[in-house]
């Protein structure tokens, strides 16, 4: 399994009708790309989001609707949205029905299939997510902690 080395680009992230989608505005702590999974990291300040990585100690807030520079407002697709997410693997697809968690790769903001143990859950894949590609997911963040 090979991890991707750069975050892929995509113009359209939101699938849910924007009139009903639960979207929230935050501030980008650092530059964020459209489609990256984001977290509110402890110590970064109120309502600042960063591209998430499972190495961080922060649960998932949602998926960035657009790209934003550091310090700029950023709209985030939060719990209940259906939107596109990026696979962390350059070689393995993620199957539909898979529970998705925040990936631990050099490229922040990607997802992989949850298997077991602790992790920051992003949501559920509603279709296959191709290797090095995008797929639609229902965003339902929570923190899975297994004793």
């Amino acid at each position, binding site marked *: 399994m090979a991890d991707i080395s750069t975050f892929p680009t995509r113009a359209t992230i939101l699938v849910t009708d924007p009139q009903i*989608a639960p979207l929230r505005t935050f501030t980008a702590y650092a530059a964020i790309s459209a489609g990256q999974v984001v977290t509110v990291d402890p110590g970064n300040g109120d309502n600042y989001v960063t591209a998430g990585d499972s190495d961080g100690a922060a649960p998932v807030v949602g998926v960035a609707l657009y790209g934003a520079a550091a310090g700029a407002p950023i709209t985030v697709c939060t719990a209940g949205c259906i939107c596109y997410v990026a696979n962390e693997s350059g070689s393995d697809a993620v*199957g*539909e*029905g898979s529970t998705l968690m925040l990936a631990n790769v050099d490229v922040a903001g990607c997802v992989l299939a949850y298997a077991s143990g602790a992790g920051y859950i992003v949501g*559920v894949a*509603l279709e296959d997510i191709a290797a090095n590609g995008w797929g639609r997911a229902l*965003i*339902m963040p929570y923190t899975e902690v*297994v004793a």
Partner: protein
Amino acid sequence: MAAISTFTTATDRILVHGDNQYTFTAAETLYAGQVVQVIPGGGDFLIYGGKLANTAVPIGIVDQNATSGDTDVTVNLYGCVCYGANADDGTAIEAGSALKVTANTSCDGTLQAWAGGATEYIIGIAVTDIAADGFGQVLICPHLSTIA
């Protein structure tokens, strides 16, 4: 206490509050008020009546009856309050209970109170009592339960 064997027909509309709905394709016959899942290997955007054996997080509660292959089947998703059905005909579920996908293999898409002590798939929280063999209101907030 006995597991119901046929899904109780809903007499009221399923959605109580919220507008977070999306359409999917029915992979099998579905009844209004059933919990549904997208299951691994089951096909893109195909929904199935929820059951423990599917080992998949439920996504919501279906808003209408459907037959296999129907497209545009509306599902009430995260944040909606809607009616769901008790899996048991002898015991009510109390308001405030976390609700898990049923282990009742004879009637998919029904609800049981989560008693803790095991990792199981939760569809949401009962916001009203759910009568035995009846319907009650559920706040949909799916997740995998956590054992402490």
